C-alpha cells in the first residue's frame, strides 16, 4: 500500500502515521471485525445482483439527473457571486435531515427509488453547476470571449462549443455524484421505503435486521471495489482565471437560471421555518425534558468532532506530504458509513451516554475528515509547495518548515474545517443511527420525530440543529483563527 510513497526521512514519515493509523483503522477494522463474525466466509449474497443493479440504477440516475440539472444551472452559477454561490452549494452542504424534511413536506406520499434519486440530484445539482462554471472560467474563458467578439450569440456558444468542450467536467461531475450516491445512507434510510436500494442499505439491513456478517462483509467489499474504481477516475481541476470571470458572467450568466438554482435552498428554508413555527406548540413535556440532554450531547459531539478533525488534519499537514502522498490521501474515501459505525464498536462495549458519544465523535471525525481534506486542506498545501521548496533550499529542516511556514499558513483553513466539521456533526443522524444505543443527539431526536411523521416538531429540532451548528462553527472558527 505504501510502495508509491516517497520516504524522504524517517521523522517526516513518522509524522504521517497519526493519519495513516486512523485510515488503516477505518479500512481494516470493519473488515477485521466482520471477518471474525463472518467466520471468514465470503460469498456472493443472495439478492446481491439485484442490489448491485438497484444501487447502480439509483446512483446512475442521481448522477445523470444532477448533471442535467447542473447544466441548466450553469448560467446561474456564472451569474452568482458571494452569498448566492454559497446558496447554490448549500443543499449539498446542509445535514441530510434538511432536504429530507423539505421533501416529506412538499411530497408526503412520494417515497422509494425515484424520490431518493430526485432528492439527491437536487441536493447535488447546485454543486455540479458551480463546479462546471469554475471549469468554464478556467479553461474556456478566453475562447468564449473571442467567440463573443466575433459575433456569436450566447445560445450558439452553449450549443456548438461548450457542451462538447465541457465533456471532461461533465464526466467528472457525473463520477463524483455517482460515488456520493453509491455511499449515501441517510436519504435511502428515510425515503427509500422498505426495500434496500443501495449497498449501504443492504449492509445496514444485513447487520441490523439479519445479523448476517458474511453478507455485510461481501457487500461492503463489492462496494469498496466500485468506489476505488470511481475515485481513480476523478482528477483535480485546473486553475481559475479570475480576470475574465466578470466578463463571462456578463455574457453567459443568467438571472433565470440563478433563480432556479436558488429554489432548493429557498424551499428548504421556507419549509423549515414554516414547520418549526408550528412545531413549538407540538412539543410535549417529554420532548421538552429530552431537549437539554440532546442539545448537550450534540454540542459535545460537535466539539469532539471538530477537535479530532482539526487535530488529524494538522498532523497530516505537519508531515509535509508531497504531491504523491497528497494524491494518495485524496483518493481515500470512507468505505461505508454503516461499516464505519459498526467498526467504532471496537472502542468498547455497552451503550452508555459517554460511550455512544465517543463512538459518534470518532465515526463522524473519520467520515468528515477525508472530505474536508480534499475540499480545503489538500489544495492549500499544494499552493504552499513552492514555499516549502524554497525553505528546503534555504536549508530548513522539515520540522522547522512545518512549524514556521506550513502550519501558520493553513491555520485559518484548519479553523474553517473545524467549524464545518462541528456544523455537520450537529446534523449527523446516519452514522449516529448505527452507533448509538438510543437517540442521544438532537439530530437523532429529529429523525425519530420524522419517522413518526411529527414533521413540525422535527423541523423545530432541525432548526435548532442548524442554529446551534452555525453558532458553534462560528465560535470554533473564531477561536482557532490566526489573529492578525
Amino acid at each position: 500500500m505504501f510502495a508509491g510513497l516517497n520516504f524522504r526521512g524517517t521523522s517526516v514519515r513518522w509524522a504521517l502515521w497519526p493519519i495513516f493509523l486512523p485510515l488503516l483503522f477505518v479500512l481494516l477494522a470493519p473488515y477485521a471485525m466482520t471477518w471474525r463474525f463472518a467466520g471468514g466466509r465470503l460469498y456472493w449474497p443472495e439478492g446481491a445482483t439485484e442490489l448491485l443493479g438497484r444501487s447502480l440504477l439509483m446512483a446512475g440516475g442521481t448522477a445523470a439527473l444532477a448533471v442535467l440539472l447542473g447544466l441548466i444551472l450553469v448560467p446561474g452559477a456564472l451569474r452568482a457571486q458571494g452569498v448566492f454561490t454559497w446558496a447554490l452549494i448549500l443543499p449539498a452542504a446542509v445535514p441530510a435531515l434538511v432536504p429530507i424534511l423539505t421533501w416529506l413536506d412538499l411530497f408526503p406520499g412520494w417515497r422509494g427509488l425515484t424520490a431518493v434519486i430526485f432528492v439527491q440530484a437536487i441536493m447535488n445539482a447546485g454543486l455540479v453547476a458551480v463546479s462546471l462554471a469554475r471549469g468554464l472560467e478556467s479553461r474556456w474563458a478566453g475562447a468564449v470571449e473571442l467567440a463573443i467578439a466575433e459575433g456569436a450569440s450566447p445560445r450558439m456558444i452553449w450549443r456548438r462549443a461548450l457542451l462538447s468542450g465541457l465533456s471532461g467536467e461533465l464526466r467528472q461531475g457525473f463520477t463524483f455524484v455517482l460515488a456520493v450516491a453509491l455511499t449515501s445512507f441517510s436519504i435511502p434510510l428515510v425515503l427509500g421505503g422498505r426495500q434496500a436500494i443501495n449497498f449501504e442499505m443492504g449492509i445496514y439491513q444485513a447487520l441490523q435486521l439479519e445479523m448476517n456478517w458474511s453478507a455485510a462483509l461481501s457487500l461492503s467489499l463489492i462496494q469498496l471495489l466500485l468506489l476505488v474504481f470511481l475515485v481513480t477516475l476523478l482528477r483535480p481541476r485546473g486553475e481559475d482565471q479570475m480576470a475574465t470571470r466578470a466578463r463571462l458572467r456578463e455574457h453567459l450568466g443568467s438571472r433565470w437560471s440563478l433563480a432556479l438554482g436558488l429554489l432548493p435552498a429557498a424551499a428548504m428554508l421556507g419549509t423549515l421555518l414554516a414547520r418549526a413555527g408550528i412545531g413549538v406548540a407540538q412539543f410535549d413535556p417529554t420532548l421538552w425534558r429530552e431537549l437539554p440532554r440532546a442539545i448537550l450531547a450534540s454540542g459535545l459531539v460537535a466539539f469532539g468532532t471538530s477537535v479530532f478533525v482539526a487535530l488529524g488534519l494538522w498532523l497530516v499537514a505537519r508531515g509535509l506530504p508531497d504531491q504523491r502522498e497528497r494524491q494518495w490521501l485524496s483518493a481515500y474515501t470512507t468505505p461505508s458509513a454503516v461499516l464505519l459505525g459498526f467498526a467504532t464498536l471496537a472502542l468498547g462495549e455497552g451503550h452508555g451516554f459517554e460511550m455512544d458519544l465517543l463512538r459518534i465523535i470518532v465515526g463522524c471525525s473519520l467520515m468528515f475528515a477525508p472530505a474536508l481534506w480534499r475540499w480545503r486542506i489538500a489544495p492549500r498545501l499544494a499552493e504552499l509547495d513552492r514555499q516549502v521548496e524554497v525553505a528546503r533550499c534555504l536549508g530548513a529542516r522539515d520540522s522547522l518548515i512545518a512549524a514556521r511556514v506550513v502550519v501558520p499558513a493553513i491555520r485559518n483553513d484548519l479553523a474553517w474545517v473545524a467549524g464545518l466539521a462541528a456544523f455537520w456533526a450537529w446534523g449527523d443522524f446516519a452514522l449516529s443511527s448505527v452507533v448509538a444505543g438510543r437517540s442521544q443527539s438532537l439530530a437523532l431526536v429529529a429523525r425519530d420525530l420524522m419517522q413518526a411523521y411529527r414533521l413540525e416538531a422535527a423541523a423545530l429540532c432541525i432548526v435548532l440543529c442548524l442554529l446551534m451548528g452555525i453558532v458553534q462553527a462560528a465560535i470554533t472558527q473564531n477561536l482557532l483563527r490566526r489573529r492578525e
Partner: protein
Amino acid sequence: MSQIRGLIKDYDGFRLEIPLMELSDQGVTVLRGPSGSGKTSVLRILTGLEPCDGFEWWIQDQGREINLAELSVRDRRLGVVFQSYELFPHLSAQQNLSFAAEARGLDPASTANRLRRLIQRLSLEPILERRAEKLSGGEKQRVALARALIGQPRFLLLDEPFAALDQDLRAEARQLLQQVLHEEACPALLVTHDPADVDALATKVIDIENGRLRSSK
C-alpha cells in the same frame, strides 16, 4: 570553474541533455534561452528539488573538490531567488530573514553583523516589520536576495529575478545585485531570456535550446 556533468533527464515529451556545463567561480554565469528550453529544469536539478540520475556538480570548496549532487538539498548550501520570490507571506521581512538564518543553523550573535550589513546594503530598514504580502515587487526582490545570501551560500541561483519588476526598477535592481554579489564574493547562475540581464551582469553566457547547450562564451 565548477563543472556540471551528466545532466540528462527525460520528461514527458522533452529531453534535457547536457553532458557537460561549466559555471564561472566568480561573477554571474547566465543561462540564456527561450521559454520551454529547459532553463528552469536545470535550476531545479541543481538545487536538488528534482532528482537526476548520474548527474554530478563538482565545485571547489575550501581547497577541496566536492560533488554537490551527492549532498541533500539542505547540505548543498545554495542560495535561491525564484521569479516570484516566494517569501513567506505571513511572516515579516525581518522574520523571513531570521527564518533563513535559523534554517542554516547560524548562531544569532555571530550572524547579527552580517544581517545588519545586508539590511543596510539592500535598504531594508524601513520595511523590516512589514509582512511580506504587503511588500512591493522591488521590496520583495531585495528581501528575497538578502534571505538567499544570509546563509553564505556556495552558489547563488537566480531564476528570472527581475521578471516581476517594472522596467524602471530593473536597471536599478541589476546594479544592486551586481554590487552585492561582488561584495559577498558569491558566484551566481542567472537564468533569464532578457538580453538586458546578459548585457548588465554576465561574466559568462551559456545558451540553451530544446534541452541542449548551443554555445558558451
